[in-house]
């Protein structure tokens, strides 16, 4: 037989939540008075709430929540703790998978890293051959064309030089300058000898050789 004059004082003396929950159950079972039972349960819920606010012994609170005498509590309080329990379970359930996801992620990145590392070597292996021969041949192939052009240019230059040489040779050659191409004596009597000097000049830079003067 337990008599509860002041349930709050009794709960403070009991201390742990688990003991309180047992006390409340004893109180309910013994059926001292409904008023006391109700007071105890009410005080008990209040203590649970305050203890939750102050975060004292969460594990004991959670354990004691399973040991509560729900018949001695108000149904509204039951709903509260039921929702809290559900949320706690969900939170714990979510925390587990998160770690698993992290581990899976940690496992995934390596695979990706491996996959990435694998392609990179492939690319690197593919690139060296492609890059090495690629640019080199074009450059080599491109290099040959210029020489012909240069040779052609050189040939042209040589031809130009040849022409220039011929021109130079011509410049060095003699040049006959004879201003008069036709001389008109006019009316002349019969059997008369006409003598006319024709002036010629060497306009070149070489000796002008007069091979012959032939009448026709």
């Amino acid at each position, binding site marked *: 037989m337990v008599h509860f004059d002041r349930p709050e004082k009794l709960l403070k003396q009991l201390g742990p939540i688990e003991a309180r929950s047992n006390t409340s159950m004893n109180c309910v079972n013994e059926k001292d008075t409904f008023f006391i039972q109700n007071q105890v349960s009410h005080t008990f819920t209040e203590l649970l709430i305050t203890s939750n606010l102050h975060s004292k012994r969460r594990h004991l609170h959670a354990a004691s929540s399973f040991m509560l005498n729900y018949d001695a509590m108000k149904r509204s309080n039951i709903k509260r703790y039921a929702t809290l329990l559900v949320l706690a379970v969900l939170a714990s359930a979510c925390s587990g998978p998160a770690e698993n996801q992290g581990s899976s992620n940690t496992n995934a990145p390596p695979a990706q890293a491996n996959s990435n590392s694998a392609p990179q070597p492939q690319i690197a292996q593919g690139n060296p051959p492609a890059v090495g021969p690629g640019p080199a041949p074009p450059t080599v192939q491109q290099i040959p064309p210029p020489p012909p052009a240069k040779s052609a240019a050189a040939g042209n230059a040589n031809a130009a030089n040849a022409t220039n040489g011929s021109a130079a040779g011509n410049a060095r*050659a*003699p040049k*006959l300058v*004879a201003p008069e191409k036709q001389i008109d004596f006019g009316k002349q009597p019969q059997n008369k000898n006409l*003598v006319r000097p024709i002036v*010629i*000049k060497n306009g070149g830079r070489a000796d*002008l050789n007069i091979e012959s*003067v032939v*009448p026709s």
Partner: protein
Amino acid sequence: MDFPKVLRPGQAGTIKVKVETGTAPGVHVKSVTIKTNDPNDPSHLVRFAFDVKG
């Protein structure tokens, strides 16, 4: 026909040409060909024209 055999660069010379009019009246054209070592004009032709009175 008198003419110099060689002309130095810049040197001038004269070729004396003698033409006989003959007895045939009318216009006559004679020519003289001067052959030299000029590569551009190796054979230079000079014409002489005269009208013989009858």
